[in-house]
């Protein structure tokens, strides 16, 4: 029963010990802290960079061009917006050089709301990320998926963005979501791989015997099967959609929840199969709702499945405002909540063709 952040740490350990990862770096990623969310504690190749996101992304690109395997972190995606030009270069170098160069790097960054982070610790990055061609974009909602997607990202010869749902990083895995090889007992796991509080200069992690698991980039998973409405989501919103679905089951509404996991490329066949079955679809994400990735999913569905639909596809996303406010009411009113997801599903379910 690992947490997602422990699963990420274990994947990085497998990365640096078996898959050739040479550098895991970013602000406060190295000792003593090992990442503001502890994701890089106890890793051999983790180091602290200067406070300069442009340098971090540039270093990642350069290391990749030099045949290394860098995993770079932007401490919060809220602070990646001064590097979009460099992210575009990471994504266009292979194409611009006519295939002469590839850029095998992984960029990790925590995203989303849910921790009362106010204006600059609540940003989503999925809409921005899916606008940068040449990148693969993944976003897990369980520890096991985080582990398996990160290993696939490390092995990919292209730039891969690994979006970490902030609010889920410390949530424990549910049965079946374990990392293959982790000890069943979570206290034990914590003793093995969590750095102690206080002085940790002498501390060494003892890693479990981990098996490699590669969740293919581009494969969604049906987190809940249902027949009335299809909900397409990813990251933090997936457990919310599942909770909403459970509550609606009592009201006789049978909801299918697709956890997209990969935003680019995404699993169109999985979406198509589900929408053909339910004829009703809701897209849920936290990013601001104007020029939003869910709008792309809806456009694609409209283009290809218009005549299958029994109701207009809906988007439930973040309010189109300049920031997410600190106070409870403000954050709650700005991004989808279980209640608003329930209401949207129910409305779709009740729509008569």
């Amino acid at each position, binding site marked *: 029963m690992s947490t997602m952040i422990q699963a990420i740490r274990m994947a990085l350990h497998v990365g640096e010990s078996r898959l050739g990862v040479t550098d895991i770096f970013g602000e406060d990623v190295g000792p003593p802290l090992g990442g*503001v969310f502890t994701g890089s504690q106890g890793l051999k190749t983790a180091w*602290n960079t200067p406070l300069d996101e442009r340098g971090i992304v540039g270093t990642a690109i350069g290391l990749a061009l030099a045949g290394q395997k860098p995993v770079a972190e932007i401490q919060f995606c809220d602070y990646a917006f001064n590097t979009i030009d460099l992210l575009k270069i990471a994504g266009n170098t292979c194409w611009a050089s006519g295939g002469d160069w590839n850029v095998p790097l992984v960029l990790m960054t925590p995203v989303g709301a849910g921790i009362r982070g106010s204006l600059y610790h609540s940003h989503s990055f999925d809409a921005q990320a899916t606008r940068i061609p040449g990148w693969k974009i993944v976003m897990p909602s369980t520890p096991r998926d985080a582990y398996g997607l990160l290993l696939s990202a490390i092995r990919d010869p292209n730039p891969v963005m690994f979006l970490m749902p902030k609010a889920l990083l410390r949530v424990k895995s549910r049965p079946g979501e374990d990392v293959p090889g982790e000890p069943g007992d979570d206290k034990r796991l914590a003793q093995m791989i969590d750095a102690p509080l206080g002085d940790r200069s002498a501390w060494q992690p003892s890693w479990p015997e981990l098996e490699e698991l590669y969740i293919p980039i581009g494969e969604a998973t049906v987190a809940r099967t249902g027949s009335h409405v299809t909900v397409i989501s990813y990251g933090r919103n997936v457990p919310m959609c599942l909770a909403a679905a459970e509550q609606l089951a009592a009201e006789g509404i049978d909801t299918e929840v697709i956890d997209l996991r990969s935003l680019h490329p995404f699993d169109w066949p999985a979406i198509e199969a589900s929408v053909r079955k339910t004829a009703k679809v809701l897209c849920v994400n936290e990013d601001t709702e104007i020029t939003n990735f869910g709008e792309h999913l809806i456009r694609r569905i409209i283009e290809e499945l218009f005549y299958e639909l029994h109701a207009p596809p809906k988007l439930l996303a973040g309010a189109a405002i300049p920031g997410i406010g*600190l106070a409870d009411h403000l954050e709650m009113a700005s991004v989808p909540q279980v209640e608003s997801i329930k209401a949207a599903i129910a409305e779709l379910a009740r729509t008569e063709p």
Partner: protein
Amino acid sequence: MSSASPNLSVAPPSGHLSAESCLQIYDLMLRARILEERLISMYKQGDGYFWIGGPGEEAFNVPLGLLADKGAGVDHDYLHLHYRSSATLLAMGADPIDSLRQMRNVATDPYSKGRNFAGHYSKREWNIVPVTSPIEVQFSIAIGTARAQRKGSGAKGITIVQGGDAGTAEGDFATALVWSSRKGNELPLLMIVTNNRYGISTAFQGQHGYEQIADRGKAFGMQTAVVDGNDPEASYAALQRALHYVRTEKKPLLLEAMVSRLRGHSSASGANLVKGEVDCLEKFEATLEARKLIGKDDIAKRRAAITAELLDASMQIRDEPAPSPDSIWEHVFADHNLVGGER
């Protein structure tokens, strides 16, 4: 003359300030320290989600607040501050209760209406530009207010921008150096780096190629200075010199103040007392005692009085309303050109 330091005599040759000035500065340092302690306990009691602030910077930030030319518009100083500037605000005359309101993110928070973290001040009436969480961007924005005050503009004010040591690695710091020192186009910009030798968990050591960050200004032919930010009198004198230079020459100056980080980075790292850091408040208390300007009992009394005052203040705001959900839609756009003088 400008409204700066209305009730402070210029430092005499000795380098000491007058007794009256010392006590005023001490009182403001103490209030600022106790304000931060109150904010930290509010955080620990669950009366706020996040704390970040300035314990350890009072000896520098109080003189800054006293010496800045306070007011609205280009004839006064623009302040682009860091998130550790509570002492500067108090020295300028801010009411500490408003900091508590922001910590509690109530609708009455005058700085952000319950939207932003503690220490993220904004006050147009005093030219205090909204403090932003993104590190160092204030250095790219400050060159704009400074340009509005450039030589020949007729504006009386200057621009002051402040940030931490780690943040100087961002390109924005270089942007301020480049843009403020263009030959023939110099800007009246005081750049302040408050160097506490850390960026969150990352030590200065091993991240920088120079001994002092102030050295980076030298390449641009600009005036630079380094001051012991734990000494309020030295800080006062250094700021007075720096402000005088920027005001009269309308040219940039880079000032580095060596300060302490007494409660660590923020609540994320516990906000507990850190060992081995110089405490400017204790140090100044010792100085004032040695000069017989204050006694142990006065100190205890003042401390108790201010603590009680702030405790009352925190009680007073207990029942102030949270912002309403619908308020998220307010102020996405402005209807009037407030900065242009419209009402």
